[in-house]
């Protein structure tokens, strides 16, 4: 007991947090102290000091946690061996609290923090949903409400980015037969830098919140409460994680695939990971610029957005959406990859039109770069600009459609099990939910209808459906599906099904309810609504549904945590998959494949007897999978 405590207290996580606190205090003290020396009246209440402190705090976290140590040693010319395994003399589990370079450990670190953050964001949603159940203000005031939904938005998005990181990190190297990512230290950095970022955003709540939503539009961002600065900086720091992680993945896929694994023989999830990473690598920079400019304008008095100095508030929106539209495909592409990955396994049929599905991920990513202004149809853009954006927006439906049709063709005449196991349920649920999210997109992309729908709860319904269908459901499905791979044990099937059957209907009620009230005139981001709209009944339903979703998620967490001890040891390949990761023991060895494998066939040849996807380079031909 005491030992456990000591291990936790000396872990990188705790050291990092301490470092962040100290760094923040130093940075804050430095600027405020300078002001005190200059004899300012209230030197200790000063926003630039807060901003500076926040940045130094992040650096403090990174140094104290030790992610930078190896690099610092390189500077002075020391070579550092890649440390593996638990720190000297500490138990295996302590790896997860410390800087570890193994991609599977990092993947799980991402996954667990993503779930934690999801809980926080979910609790916020539930708090403000209860406020919205009735008209009139019950237990929040305007400022609390504004802060809660803003925090809910950005925290959930951080949770998604973490979940995406988890899936990509854990699965991609395993699937391509690599022993790890190309840059293990950079990989650790990507994860650890997102921790102080999350702490920054959360501390924004403590200092007074902010009220711009997750989009942080200028010029409101220049006048919002102080929490704004921490939000902007936290969002900005998350960007480092995205950029470093995506570059790492692209290099890994480009240079570390197993022998014989040509691009069109990669498991389909890897294609999704590649498309995702291309978006993250590039688009993140522009939102970085937008956030930097906002901080500079707010804190240092530079002018970009405030029209009173000649600035242009719409510029912020362009820079922001140039990232934030493509990033919605970051949220969904890995999830859609999971769907494409699981369907053939359960239907016992090849993935229909593998190449088209693979290329449609790239297609979505590329077209996704051309549509950002559809979030700004009402901003006062000239028609000459918004009409082309309407057409490009409509076109994203096409590559997405290719995926849907290919999925249907995959399971058509396939042999789905009569009693679908939880991962399959989540995949099918995801298809239905993402479908409704997707088809409510073009109506937003058509300008005249968007003029009614913009900033209404229809949009809220649309994006919860796309994000649940494209991320939450597939992610949960992936957690169940790869649970035996990660832990060596089977999850509890009955609880898994309970989770699904609570969450799916509740989600449908919530999302359709949101669309319905939106059409009738419910605006986004309001703490209270007019009883004259006649939507109180629906609002109550939405709130109840939210509570059910919340409980169902708790059931899943219980399942994931306790199945590790209580459930029977799982079969190494319980789903009879041909995927490389299922051909080794669970959990996989430290370096994945002790003997490299070579690819000699196509990945999804279910239904064709005696075909081989991979085989050990060393051994003679051993049929894999089936």
């Amino acid at each position, binding site marked *: 007991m005491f030992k456990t405590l000591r291990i936790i207290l000396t872990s990188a996580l705790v050291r990092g947090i301490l470092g962040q606190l100290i760094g923040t205090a130093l940075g804050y003290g430095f600027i405020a102290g300078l002001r005190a020396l200059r004899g300012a009246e209230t030197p200790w209440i000063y926003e630039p000091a807060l901003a500076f402190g926040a940045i130094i705090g992040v650096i403090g976290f990174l140094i104290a946690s030790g992610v930078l140590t190896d690099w610092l040693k390189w500077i002075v010319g020391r070579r550092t061996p890649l440390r593996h395994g638990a720190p000297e003399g500490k138990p295996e589990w302590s790896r997860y609290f410390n800087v570890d370079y193994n991609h599977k450990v990092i993947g799980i670190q991402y996954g667990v923090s993503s779930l934690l953050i999801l809980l926080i964001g979910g609790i916020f949603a539930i708090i403000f949903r209860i406020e919205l159940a009735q008209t009139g203000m019950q237990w929040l005031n305007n400022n609390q409400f504004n802060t809660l939904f803003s925090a809910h938005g950005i925290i959930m998005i951080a949770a998604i980015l973490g979940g995406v990181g988890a899936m990509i990190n854990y699965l991609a190297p395993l699937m391509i037969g690599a022993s790890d990512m190309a840059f293990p230290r950079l990989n650790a950095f990507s994860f650890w830098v997102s921790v102080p970022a999350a702490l920054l955003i959360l501390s924004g709540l403590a200092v007074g919140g902010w009220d711009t939503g997750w989009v942080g539009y200028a010029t*409101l961002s220049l006048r919002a409460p102080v929490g704004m600065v921490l939000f902007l900086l936290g969002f900005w720091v998350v960007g480092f994680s995205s950029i470093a992680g995506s570059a790492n993945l692209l290099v890994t896929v480009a240079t570390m695939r197993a022998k014989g694994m040509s691009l069109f023989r990669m498991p389909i999830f890897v294609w999704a990971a590649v498309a995702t990473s291309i978006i993250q690598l590039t688009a993140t920079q522009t939102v970085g610029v937008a956030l930097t400019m906002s901080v500079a304008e707010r804190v240092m008095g530079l002018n970009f957005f405030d029209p009173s100095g000649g600035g242009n508030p719409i510029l912020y929106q362009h820079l922001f959406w140039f990232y934030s539209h493509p990033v919605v495909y970051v949220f969904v592409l890995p999830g859609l990859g999971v769907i494409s990955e699981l369907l053939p396994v359960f239907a016992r*049929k090849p993935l*229909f*039109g593998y190449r*088209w599905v693979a290329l449609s991920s790239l297609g979505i990513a590329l077209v996704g770069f051309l549509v950002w202004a559809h979030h700004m149809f009402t901003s006062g853009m000239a028609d000459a600009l918004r009409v082309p954006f309407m057409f490009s927006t409509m076109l994203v439906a096409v590559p997405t459609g290719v995926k849907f049709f290919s999925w*249907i063709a995959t399971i058509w005449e396939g042999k789905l099990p009569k009693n679908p196991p939880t991962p399959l349920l989540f995949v099918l649920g995801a298809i239905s939910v993402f479908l409704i999210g997707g*088809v409510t997109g073009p109506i937003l992309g058509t300008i005249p209808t968007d003029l009614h729908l913009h900033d209404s709860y229809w949009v809220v319904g649309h994006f919860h459906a796309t994000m649940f269908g494209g991320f939450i459901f597939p992610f949960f499905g992936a957690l169940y599906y790869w649970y035996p791979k990660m832990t060596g044990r089977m999850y509890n099937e009955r609880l898994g099904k309970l989770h699904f059957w609570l969450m799916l209907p509740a989600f449908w009620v919530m999302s359709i309810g949101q669309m319905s009230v939106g059409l009738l005139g419910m605006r986004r981001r309001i703490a209270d609504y*007019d009883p004259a709209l006649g939507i109180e009944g629906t609002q109550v339903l939405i709130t109840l549904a939210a509570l059910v979703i919340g409980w169902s998620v708790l059931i899943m967490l219980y399942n994931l945590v306790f199945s590790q001890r209580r459930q029977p040891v799982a079969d190494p390949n319980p789903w009879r998959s041909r995927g490389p990761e299922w051909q080794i023991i669970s959990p996989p060895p430290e370096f994945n494949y002790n003997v490299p494998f070579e690819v000699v066939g196509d990945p999804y040849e279910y239904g064709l007897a005696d075909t081989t996807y991979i085989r050990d380079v060393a051994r003679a031909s051993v049929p894999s999978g089936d």
Partner: protein
Amino acid sequence: MRRFRHFIIVAVLVALSTVGLRALFSVILALPRASSAEAIPIDALFNGHYWMIAFLFSLIMVMMLYALFVFRRPADDDSDGPYIHGNTVLEIGWTIVPTVVVLGFGVWGAITLNDITSPKPNEMTVNVTGQQWVWSFAYPEQGDFASSELVLPVDRTIVLKMTAEDVIHSFWVPEFRVKQDLVPGRETTLRITPTEAGEFALRCAEICGLNHTQMVATVRVLDAAGFQAWVDAENAAPAFADMTPEDRGAFWHSAEGLGCVACHSLDGAPGVGPTWQGLYGRQEELEDGGTVTVDDPYITTSIIDPNAQITAGYLPNLMPQNYADQIAALEQEIQAAEGVDIDIIADLIAFIKTLE
């Protein structure tokens, strides 16, 4: 042949489901009343989209559930499904057909957009200003008076010329369907043609800070005669020069004036800023610990440099910092129009003094 039968069943189910869903949408995804000419083509487009949503959703869901229930294998069946790798013709088909469909919707959308935004004969201009968290409307063609409610004649196309003082706001009356942001530093326009008399609610649709929720205004649509009567009554309002400072102060406080009402109540009700009831002469505690007595200089500073002294319990940065400019501009305007010098801050102080 078996295959063929599956497809026929599916086609029938999809058709039934599409029609059923479309009918269901009329109930659960109903639009509010259509009270403007613009709403008609927009609702037609909504209808088209609803059909498409109903069809696509039915198509995919029916086929998915059909595959799940019809083709599924019993628990002890370990065999694989048929080996079907793909089909290029199909793939090209389901790339081309949706492309054509969505582009068709794009064209429909572009035509509708042109329809509702192009200039119409006999338009009337109203200037709309949004400010945290009040609306004000000015009628340049009817005598250039200001109003805190939007009053419009029926069946005439109104061109709203809109701007914001501080942050972005958005003009939305659901019954009119169309929406337009008000952006600081630029003018945006929106055309609406109310088609029925009645009262509507204008609600700000873009998050604009603390009281975004409460940023609402009344829209009244009147018949031509009623509108004219309202205009005449507004124009009969006395010139500023003829009003007492107290009355002028009350006017500046209102939404038509400087919009102080958005944050400062007159009856002691709590708000974003301190209430004005009993304000004059009161001892105020400040955020930095000091106290002041509310007098002329204090009020003046609070208006032109609001962050200088923040009353305890209130937040900085909420009050617009540009009142000095706004007031100077107004004073100049009045000087130009009526030839008198008016001291707006003095008016406000006189008004506050009356609020015991």
